[in-house]
């Protein structure tokens, strides 16, 4: 389905649709998320049965602060849509899409690991990339990049000019 048609069809159910650079993005509320994804998957003309990725972004100066983007594609029609949900800084919780799309499992664990977004109903919400005892969520904009002044398990890595090799 070409872009304009797709945008119209999606807009019929999810009113907030943005079209930019040939891509269609639908903005939904947290409570609407699972219903919206289910409709996108089950509607015959859309048939978005493949979830490519779940990504979180942190905009600390804006409300809502966290935005989670779901990239959906269709194996029959080969079109794409993005669904975005905004989450506030105080309550970064979201229902998990693992019941609808099992592939979301590790993507959601990564978003939890990097940003601290809690996916309710996830079968196994644990850290995936960072060690289990890590404190903090490093990809938030308020966290430093590290490599210097890093503390982990009692070790401390000073800045480059104060490092001496043993």
């Amino acid at each position, binding site marked *: 389905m070409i872009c304009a048609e797709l945008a119209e069809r999606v807009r019929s159910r999810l009113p907030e649709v943005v079209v*930019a*650079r*040939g*891509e269609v*993005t639908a903005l939904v509320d947290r409570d609407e998320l699972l219903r919206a994804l289910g409709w996108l998957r089950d509607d015959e003309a859309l048939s978005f*049965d*493949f*979830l*490519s*990725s779940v*990504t979180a*972004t*942190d905009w600390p100066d804006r409300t809502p602060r966290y935005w989670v*983007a779901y*990239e959906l*594609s269709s*194996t029959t029609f*080969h079109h*794409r849509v*993005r669904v975005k949900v905004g989450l506030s800084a105080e309550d970064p919780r979201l229902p998990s899409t693992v019941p609808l*799309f*099992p*592939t979301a*499992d*590790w*993507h959601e664990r990564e978003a939890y690991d*990097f940003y601290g977004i809690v996916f309710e109903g996830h079968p196994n919400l644990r*850290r*995936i*990339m*960072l*060690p289990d005892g890590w404190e903090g969520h*490093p*990809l938030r*904009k308020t966290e430093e*990049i*590290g490599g210097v002044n890093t503390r982990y398990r009692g070790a401390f890595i000073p800045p480059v000019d104060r490092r001496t090799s043993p």
Partner: protein
Amino acid sequence: MNVDTSPDFDPMDPLSTEELRQETMVINMGPQHPSMHGVLRLLLELDGETVVRCEPIVGYLHTGIEKNLEYRTWQQGVTFVTRADYLSPFFNELAYALAVERLLGIEAPPRAQVLRVLFCELNRIASHLVWLATSGMELGAVSVMLFGFREREVLLDIFEMATGLRMNHAYIRIGGVVMDLPDGATDAIEDFLDMMPGRIREYESLLSSNPIWLERNAGVGILSGEDAIALGVTGPTLRAAGVPMDVRRDEPYAGYETYEFDVVTRDSADCYGRYAIRLDEMRESMRIVEQCLDRLREPGPVMVEDPKVAWPSRLEVGPDGIGNSTAYVTHIMEESMEALIHHFKMVTDGVKVPAGEVYLPVESPRGELGMYVVSDGEHRPYRVRIRDPSFVNLQAVPAMVRGGLVADAIAVIASLDPVMGGVDR
């Protein structure tokens, strides 16, 4: 004396009680292991030799590439992104460059697109050769390891001729490619295309009807099409189940709609099907490379003209390697102050990309490699997420391994071809 007096206990057969027979063993196949597929940790719950449950644990190669990208300019991002999935560096660079070009609203010149396709397809062959070498070695066919790396050396020579590096090239950049092909590169590629079909036939004669290879691969690691789509698996694993999904065909980029090639599928959904698909994909890639070489006969620019976007260097091969041409150095150092300032600004500040977000998928040797790029209008990326195919494919390992033997777990992971650099980024 403590004697178990339950009715099942037979003192002559200590394993006769039901409880002992149902005990499973949890084994850790730790991050360092003889399997050549990098630092993947598997927790296997075994009932004897059969796998009851399997949990892959990743993160042992987590490098923080995505966080680092937020602290570098857009062009420097290429050097980071290229090291994510380190066996297919051109694909990472291509996805990133195409995503940023979509944000900028520009298109690279046609010759640059042809060069991009050429190197990506050569990279696909190189990646499949490493897959063949390491999988063969893991399953015991050690000569295949030496053969695979022998052919790969020829390809790495071609890459070095064109980009200066054997791996992690930073060749495909925003706006085009950094340098045109030097003299002798087309001859080298043509020699490679002459040699390679015979070598693929050699691999087939060594492996395809080999009874040991068949025993270890045929019927092992079955993953049906519906399961694969539900789990998000793409690439040869999905095509082995009969689903002809290929981003080059479904959502073409970089001019792929103008090339003739087939999307290879099989119906067996097992490890042998994935092996056969990868060999055929090498042949299809060679077809595409031949078509690229035809299109490269006419000269043309390889970097976009817009001075606010193009990488300012004019590189050429000098006596000590690839560097800025002497004419260009004379120009910026002696002739034109503005050119020097412009070069300086482009290298330190770089491109300013309009605000927005883009998701761009490409077909890497392992599946759909997507780049989700968010810009806030500045000189640095705001958020870059690499949707790596191996990261998603590894989620399917428990489903494929359950009920099989431990040795089959190795065969299954080898057939998925995970690259831990992409999984952990």
